[in-house]
């Protein structure tokens, strides 16, 4: 079980990394909009305009 003395601090380091990354993401505005991303995934945005619009 002695490996835990190494693994747990390692886990805490990773945790600290994750918290830092999240803080950076929040600070750079990535979480300012919590509504749109949930629906954006279902939108196709690769539809091409029709070749010859018959206006």
């Amino acid at each position, binding site marked *: *079980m002695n490996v*835990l003395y190494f693994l*747990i601090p390692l886990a805490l380091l990773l945790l600290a990394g994750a918290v830092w990354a*999240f*803080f950076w993401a*929040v600070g750079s505005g990535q979480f300012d*909009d919590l509504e*749109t991303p949930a*629906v954006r995934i279902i939108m196709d945005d690769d539809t091409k305009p029709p070749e010859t619009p018959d*206006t």
Partner: protein
Amino acid sequence: MSASACFHCALPVDPRDQYHVEIDGQQRTVCCPGCKAVAELIRDTGMSNYYAMRDAPQPGAGRPADDATEWQIYDREDMLAAFAESGDGTAEATIYVGGMYCAACSWLIETTMARVTGMVSADINPVTHRLRVSWNIDDIGLGGILATLANLGYDPQPLAPESAARPELLEQRAALKRLLVASLGMMQVMMFAVGLYAGDFQGMEPNMQLFLRWVSFAVTTPVVLYAARPFFRSAWRGVMARAPGMDLPVSIAVAAAYFGSTYMTITGGQTTWFDSVVMFVFFLTLGRFLEMRARHRSIDRSTALSNVLPNTVTRCGEDGQTTIPSSQLVAGDVVLVRPGESIAADGILVDGETAVDEALLTGEATPKSKSIGDPALAGSINLDSMIQLRVEATGSDTTLGTISRMSERARYARPTYVQIADRIASYIVVAILIVAAAVGTFWYITAPDRAFVVTLSVLVVTCPCALALATPAAFAAAGTRLAQLRLLVTNGNAIEVLARSTRILFDKTGTVTRGTPVIEEIEVLDDKFDEKQCLRIAAALETVSTHPIASAFRASENDVTIHDQSVAVGNGVSGTIDNQVWRLGRASFAGAARAATVAAEAAPTNSATGVYLGVEGRLVARFSISDELREDAADTISHLAGLGLQVGLISGDGEAAVQHTAGKLGIADYHANCSPEDKLEIIRTAQQNGETVIMVGDGINDAPVLAGADASIAPAHGALLAQTNADIVLVGDALQPLLLGILLAKQTIRVVKQNLSWAIVYNAAALPLAALGYVPPWAAAIGMSASSLIVVLNALRISRFGAP
């Protein structure tokens, strides 16, 4: 959508006057050239997916404005300075996009914006309807961006930079960081706690136990010092103000458990409570976060007030007419207001004569005529002809500003149903710590070897998770289900109020009625004509009028050739057909001679407004124009009465009109000619008699009334400000969701009561058993989890409410 609804904007299509667009290989019918242009634009840019993705549109949404605004003026330097922050060749602005109603709209806007030349970034928030754009000023101007949005059928309004919601954003960021620290901390510490509990049974090396405790301490410390900081701060403020709030017991519990655990760790004591600390902080932080988001939504709506007013005005000065941003307007300026424009500031008419629609301010549907010397109010709409105003008050000094301040005050003055769950949970945590300490001391004296296990069991078994979850879980489920039923809850307290309401009051116009006039009855007074002819002539005459009543005739055929059309302000319209002068309007205007007799003949059997058609001074027909009732209004109201609610109708309209509507709906209790103060008085009186009052209404003048009621509901099409104050926003055209909402609220309260009873019974039963040492820690842990699970599952029943 029925076949006769416009494919783009969902308004009814006039069968005689329809247009077609081919989209995805199918011929679609649209109602007007504007909708045709927008639909073609959307198709030609390859975005027809919009139509597949969007929700069912509210009729009229996305319909382009009839009169094209001059967007170019926004390209000017002073306009750019007023609405954008620029630097480095790029500029940034926030634009409120009116007419958005679903996620597909935000997709359409973002995708279109991204294709605009010179666009650096465009992000839209579909909830607040705010578009944040950043662009290269050399490639395109603000005017061009606004024009692009307008071409898509939206109603863009640039917002002054300071009105962009910055403080809320910073608050949300801080709250998110706290929530993340609390949740990650909780997960880690719980994991270590499992190890520690397991060690208590199976035995554990003392070194490992000490190590896990120190690790728990290391993770708990940032949770307490960072995530829980708002609780300590608010508790301290409460103490300083000698009004300790519910954050005080929370803080004491967290601090006591944290320092107690630290002491135990240092001295090698028998147990630590780091897991309880982080879990408690996490649940509280989560609760605060959800509450904050609901609060921000209502702030977003209130900043939308400025959107009622125009952004630019035409000022008449010594240097002629200049267009300036409304914010530069000062008292004493003379401004020009064209027909169809809304008035930007309170002022006195100095030139011209017109009729204005003050419905936003007074709720009065009938336009008021104004002549030189009469006051005009900001937010009202100039209907008939060009006028000049001398500005008396601007911005928040206007009547509109005062009304909005009044409703803000009413909103904050209202005694709010505070977060009972939070408070109960925090007191219980303190009680648990006291009980645990007492039990520990007792066992330490009588049987020191069992003191640790018993104290542990007491702490675990009495964890207030079930109690803390009972109310929020039920309310969250109810909020989600209500949204599916098309009722958006902006104030969580409203659910509880709905459940115990005894009286529901409806506003008339735009609430039980659709808010758009229709021709109810045609009475032909001259045998030489028939109904159809009269209608055609009337429709032809009304083509020049901007009066709301004219829209009732718009659906009718009009193929009559007409000359010399003119509008007589406050009286009606006239025109020449086959060399005969026809007039449509008040009886005295259409055919003065017979007005008196006709008034007697057509005694007010119903309330509708009478519009008379006359030719050469003879009356020919009488049209009864009334506001059409919502289809399910009568049905919903009879069901509401069936629930034992007192249903009432209050309106600013005249006695006859209100009586007529009340009769149709089967409402015995109605009040006519009510000013906002009268309406508030009616609510107050009922409240003093111990009643709980729900007010359903729209319109800015209703805002204080809505705020004064125990719970308020506003139809989504109502004025923006009304939604700000409304606890619940009713989306769509039907009133039926109201009924479901009240039933669901009652069910929610039943579930909350069941949950609380269960949690209390469980804790009351488990605590003595644990204190007496009959519950081993593992059983306590299972009991606590099962108890929480039962509460959550019970709450989730609400989310299936009303489903088949």
